[in-house]
């Protein structure tokens, strides 16, 4: 495919950074061709303290495509966006973009808190290369999209974070953009505005616009993009249709979390050692361990083995819940009332097959007293993936329902 037909094309893209916090950057300060001369004379000094934030990435996207970049923190996602946006230049390789490009990497950038909403719209337009005249015809549309007409002449510092996001997105949406780069910003808006943005992005893509989307919110990634690039330590692990890539990425995330644990997989100790587990509660009873059964596939259900110990609590219940990638608790179940005896106890909970959309879910377990006060609760950072069979509809919704369909009938059918 020639570069003419691609919205953007990356070839052998490599970006090398030098680590040098808080020091004068003598090597970078040397302008070409002096730098090449110095690099040749002192090759050791020149390449010291470097790392590849992105290594040999080749990818191309035709117009109208929607591409997600997924990966852990530091995998090179933002570096890739910055290279496509030409915020920074590649060390090796090339970036070709056809048409106008706009980047929404951080909504607050380019905005000034003391300027009004309207003044900021003009400023953001200017930064993206639009004249005041070009922006004037768009301002009304922007204020309408952002739903802040009555606040257009109020300084931005009086706005909520959500309103600022709305203005930023609305401004970008009003520009004539062929390639749009969005990094994590949609997560700030409220649900209604998020839906509006998703709808706009669908229209934008239908009109031939190309979207590159970076987010840790895999739910949004799934609903917004058709293709994904999975990066790890600056290298491409895989590219392909978003659901497939997310499934692979999810499994890898689980495996990585297990690797980080102590060898006794699934044991009480291993869960306690899980990184970043959140724990809270008023005490009186405590959880000792949670074992989550093998990652379940759709239709197999899941088993959780919970060990606990009561101190001064006599009666209570154990709750088990599941959070999606956005932190929303999609389901919760509760044990019958338990009378606690002295010493550690244990209980096993078998959850029926979870009719959830394929994705990553995070179990949460708690001990509650009968008046509903949380005595001890764990929210596990170790995800549990639910992998469904490939289906078009699996991209949508929160739950997956089983359904029966009649034969299709047609009025004009004579047989």
């Amino acid at each position, binding site marked *: 495919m020639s570069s003419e037909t691609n919205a953007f094309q990356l070839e052998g893209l490599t970006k090398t950074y030098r680590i040098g916090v808080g020091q004068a950057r*003598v090597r*970078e*300060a040397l*302008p*070409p061709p002096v730098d090449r001369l110095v690099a040749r004379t002192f090759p050791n000094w020149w390449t010291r303290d470097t790392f590849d934030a992105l290594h040999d990435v080749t990818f191309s996207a035709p117009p109208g495509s929607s591409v997600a970049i997924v990966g852990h923190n530091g995998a090179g996602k933002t570096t890739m966006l910055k290279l496509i946006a030409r*915020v920074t*230049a590649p060390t090796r390789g090339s970036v070709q973009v056809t048409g106008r490009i706009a980047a929404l990497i951080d909504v607050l950038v380019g905005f000034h808190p003391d300027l009004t909403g309207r003044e900021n719209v003009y*400023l953001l337009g*200017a930064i993206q290369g639009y004249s005041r005249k070009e922006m004037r015809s768009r301002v009304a549309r922007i204020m309408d999209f952002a739903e802040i007409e009555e606040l257009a002449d109020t300084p931005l510092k009086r706005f909520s974070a959500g309103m600022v996001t709305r203005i930023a997105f609305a401004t970008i949406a009003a520009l004539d953009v062929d390639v749009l780069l969005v990094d994590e910003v949609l997560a700030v808006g409220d649900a209604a505005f998020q839906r509006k943005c998703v709808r706009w992005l669908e229209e934008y893509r239908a009109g031939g616009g190309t979207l590159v989307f970076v987010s840790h919110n895999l739910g949004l990634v799934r609903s917004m993009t058709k293709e994904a690039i999975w990066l790890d330590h600056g290298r491409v692990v895989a590219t392909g249709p978003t659901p497939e890539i997310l499934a692979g990425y999810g499994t890898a995330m689980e495996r990585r979390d297990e690797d980080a644990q102590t060898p006794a997989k699934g044991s009480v100790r291993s869960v306690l050692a899980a990184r970043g587990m959140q724990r809270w509660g008023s005490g009186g009873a405590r959880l000792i361990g949670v074992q989550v059964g093998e990652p379940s596939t759709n239709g197999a259900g899941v088993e959780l083995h919970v060990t606990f110990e009561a101190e001064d609590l006599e009666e209570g219940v154990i709750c088990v819940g599941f959070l999606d990638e956005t932190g929303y608790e999609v389901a919760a179940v509760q044990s019958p009332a338990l009378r606690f005896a002295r010493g550690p106890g244990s209980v096993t909970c078998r959850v029926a097959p979870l009719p959830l959309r394929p994705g990553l879910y995070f179990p949460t377990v708690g001990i509650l007293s009968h008046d509903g006060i949380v005595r001890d609760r764990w929210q596990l950072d170790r995800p549990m993936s639910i992998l469904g069979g490939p289906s078009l509809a699996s991209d949508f919704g929160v739950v997956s329902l089983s359904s029966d369909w009649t034969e299709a009938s047609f009025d004009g059918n004579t047989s």
Partner: protein
Amino acid sequence: MITRLWRYRELVLSLIRRQYQLRYRQSLVGFAWAILPPLASLFVATVVFHGVIGVQSGKPGVPYTLFALSALVPWTFFSQSLTAGVPSVVGAIAMVTRLPFPRAAIPFSMIGTSMIDLGVSLLGFILFAVITGAGLPITALWLPLLLLIELVLVVGVVLLGSAANVFARDIRLAIPLVTQLWLFLTPVMYPLENVDGALRVLYLLNPMTGIVEMFRQILAYGEAPSMDLMLLAVVGALVTLVIGIWYFAATEERFADVI
């Protein structure tokens, strides 16, 4: 760099507008801040250099205040542009690391803001000349050319300084020191005639020497600018501009990485 910057000229204007919209918000005397710095310097020059040290005006019949102010106006533009322009790229760190736009828009907007102040202080100078009865000589018509030469020099120094400051913050830290020393080593508060011998050669290598002397000639003395000063100033300014543009253009794509 220059063609890209021209496409983004609206951005430079927007940034200048932003500077101005923000600058005098929540300030008491507002716009007077544009004219206060040269007036304050004039006060110091008159009391200390003229009154205490006894420095005289470079031309008989021209009062010392007029003599000093005619050089302080271009000097203030120069030093303000440096003070605001050199740290400006680093100051816009968030924009530089996240948005693609020609980086030179930032220092240019700072110079543009100083130019507005220069316009105000030039009006102040004219007012001063009329009130004190000296009037404005016809040679003031040379002003646009001299302003252009000074602008060329300022753009060169600010581009070089603001780019270098990205790599080594020493540049910004050195600015107050450099502008102060540069002021004393430029015949702003005393005439060039007081400088003799080898030192005078050194003075003439400083492009600001020719610029302030010529401003003085056309605004206070009523003389045409001397051509030897003109030559030195033009060559000095152009060489600085070429170095500044070259260095900025050669290194700007690294700003986002090291800033």
